[in-house]
């Protein structure tokens, strides 16, 4: 059985209208017979069929306009085919339907799969994008705009490209120069005659990082009224469960307790939304998504706290793999900008260093931080008896502008409960 397709009748023809059928179902056609009249921009053209056989089905109705290449009819090699009559049958697979809203509903903001893909590619959180499409749909352009860095607010200096280049090389501040070039622009001679800045050794990257941390911590200390709530969590159940699970996994897949803590923190944040937000321009900006930042110390000094995005989602194994990847990329300096900027709360764990507790400082613009000490065997009371249990001291630092001790305490209780049932994480 062959298909008779809408033919291309010219170099710029993209579609044609089936003006009139010259055959009906059941008719026998020979190679070269006129099978239909097609209307194009240039007029009606009789179209011949190149196959011989019996017309089985007419797929397109008279008056319908379809793209070149669309199947118009089915031609069988023998006998009458069974099927609906030729006129006005619904368009079949060969006819191209316009793509309607065939989006997979994923919940959350209205965005097509293509837009979601782009958002993922550009590391744009859809929850933060305002949709400019119909009924607030997020478009590709919306995603692209959201991915752009904020425009520099500095005033533009009129300076020639060459002068700018040598100014940069010499560390000359062009904003203080007077230009003598065309139109008063700064030209090379203006740069060369300016007093060059004392040759300073450019800061090493370690120095720069230290400076950045210093700035952030100073700001946190200055701006954020911290309160602290502390709790000790019995990690026995969690560790026992881990041991069981890890026995069944290969070395590279084994889970560490840190990942349980991260997942538990994320789940707790889902319930205690007040702690899952950021402080921007004098206001709390809550977040629907939970991105827990992990403080990672770098070799050679330095500290970064990239976000494990959507920490509450996926399996624990997935989270473990993502955590491992994040840490190695953090150490290799290969973090994505979204990871650097999207954390809603941070967990800093000094357990590996063997200390019991840490009283951490919040990383602005976040409004909470969770500090974990080492999990150590300590005397504990179970059922009236003193036993040795592995316990971990957890300290929540909160921004008192946003939350208070009660809320912090409830959060830590939730965290505790979650860690008692590790299989639910």
């Amino acid at each position, binding site marked *: 059985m062959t298909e008779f397709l809408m*033919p291309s009748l010219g*170099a710029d023809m993209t579609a044609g209208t089936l003006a009139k059928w010259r055959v009906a179902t059941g008719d026998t056609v020979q190679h070269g017979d006129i099978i239909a009249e097609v209307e194009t921009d*240039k007029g009606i053209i009789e179209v011949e069929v*190149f196959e011989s056989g019996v017309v089985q089905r007419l797929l397109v109705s008279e008056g319908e306009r379809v793209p070149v290449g669309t199947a118009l009819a089915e031609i069988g090699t023998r006998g009458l085919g069974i099927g609906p009559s030729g006129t006005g049958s619904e368009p079949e697979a060969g006819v191209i339907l316009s793509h309607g809203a065939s989006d997979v509903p994923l919940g959350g903001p209205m965005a097509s799969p293509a837009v979601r893909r782009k958002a993922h590619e550009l590391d744009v959180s859809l929850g933060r994008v305002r949709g400019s499409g119909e009924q607030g749909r997020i478009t590709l352009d919306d995603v692209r705009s959201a991915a752009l860095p904020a425009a520099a607010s500095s005033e533009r200096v009129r300076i020639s490209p060459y002068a700018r280049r040598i100014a940069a090389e010499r560390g000359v501040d062009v904003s203080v120069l007077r230009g003598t070039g065309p139109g008063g622009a700064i030209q090379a001679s203006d740069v060369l005659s300016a007093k060059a800045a004392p040759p300073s050794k450019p800061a090493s990257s370690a120095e720069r990082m230290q400076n950045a941390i210093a700035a952030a911590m100073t700001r946190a200390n200055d701006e954020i009224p911290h309160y602290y709530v502390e709790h000790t969590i019995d990690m026995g159940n969690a560790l026992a469960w881990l041991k069981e699970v890890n026995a069944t996994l290969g070395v590279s897949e084994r889970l560490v307790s840190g990942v349980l803590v991260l997942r538990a923190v994320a789940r707790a944040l889902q319930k205690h939304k007040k702690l899952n937000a950021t402080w921007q321009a004098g206001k709390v900006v809550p977040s629907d998504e939970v991105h827990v930042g992990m403080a990672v110390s770098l070799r050679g000094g330095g500290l970064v706290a990239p976000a494990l995005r959507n920490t509450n989602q996926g399996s624990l194994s997935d989270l473990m793999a993502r955590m491992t990847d994040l840490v190695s990329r953090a150490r290799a300096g290969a973090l994505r900008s979204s990871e650097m900027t999207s954390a809603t709360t941070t967990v800093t764990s000094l357990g590996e260093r063997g200390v019991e507790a840490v009283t951490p400082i919040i990383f602005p613009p976040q409004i909470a931080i969770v500090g974990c000490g080492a999990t150590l065997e300590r005397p504990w009371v179970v059922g009236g008896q003193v036993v040795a249990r592995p316990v971990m001291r957890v300290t929540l630092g909160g921004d008192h502008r946003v939350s208070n001790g009660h809320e912090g305490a409830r959060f830590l209780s939730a965290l505790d409960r979650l860690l008692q049932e590790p299989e639910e994480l």
Partner: protein
Amino acid sequence: MDISRDHALELLRDMIRIRRLEEKSAELYSKQKIRGFLHLYIGEEAVGVGAMHALREDDNIVATYREHGQALVRGIPAAQIMAEMYGKANGCSGGRGGSMHLFSAERNFYGGHAIVGGGLPIAVGLALADKMKGQSRVTACFFGDGATDEGEFHESLNLAALWQLPVLFLCENNEYAMGTALWRHVSDRNIANNPPAYGVPADSVNGMDVVAVERAVHNEAELVRETSKPRFLELKTYRFRAHSMYDAELYRSKEEVDEHKKDDPIEGFQKRLLKEGLVEQSDIDTIEDAAAKEIADAVEFAEQGEWEPIEDITRHTYARNLS
């Protein structure tokens, strides 16, 4: 008819080969295998076949964009013509030209020209080179009735006559310049009246009769060869299909076309040959079968052909790449 059986079969075979090639090209165009513009020679086969058989292998040929017939009979394999129309690298112009620009250096086939009238000065130049080199070749230049409107037609006749250049001007008058009938675009419908004004002898022949065409072109070509002076021959013909694939033929009636189809050069020739007992139906069947196979093989060749790698796109812009 004063013609041998063998030669009759040759002429018939070549006309049928052209007809089948053109029909297949039409089919492939509507399936988008061949793109751009496609100008079919259906109805005009006697002109291409008669003329090309009358000319010698080493004569130069300059033709128009409706040149598949001339190209095929000149000896460019159907496979290479088809591959060229597909745009494949194994086409006769390397996929660079398409249907309107078939070229073959080894067969002295200088294209394949899409600008109406644009080939005439080239023909004059080729003849000039031959004359300066002392070669007794004819440069045959095919063009349509539309070309006789262009300034270059008149300039070329004048220059060829003035410098006595061996050009044979062959006007394939199919009565239409695209969609404009002859009487709507020339002030004197008898095109053959023009050339003598420039000192170029002109004649006319029925272009639907392949034997008459061959005889006329042969005579003219030999005169050009001997005298090294230009001559003009009008071949009165008719195209049964549209100007190109994308033409609704609003400018002429179906009745007119049907009337001319009665003079189909292939049917007419076949009928005469059968009537005179020069050929039998089985000969025709053999020819048709062979043509069908030739065309099928050509399509296969084209289908299998490779696309030129895009990295080579600048090749042949100049003799050597400029860098």
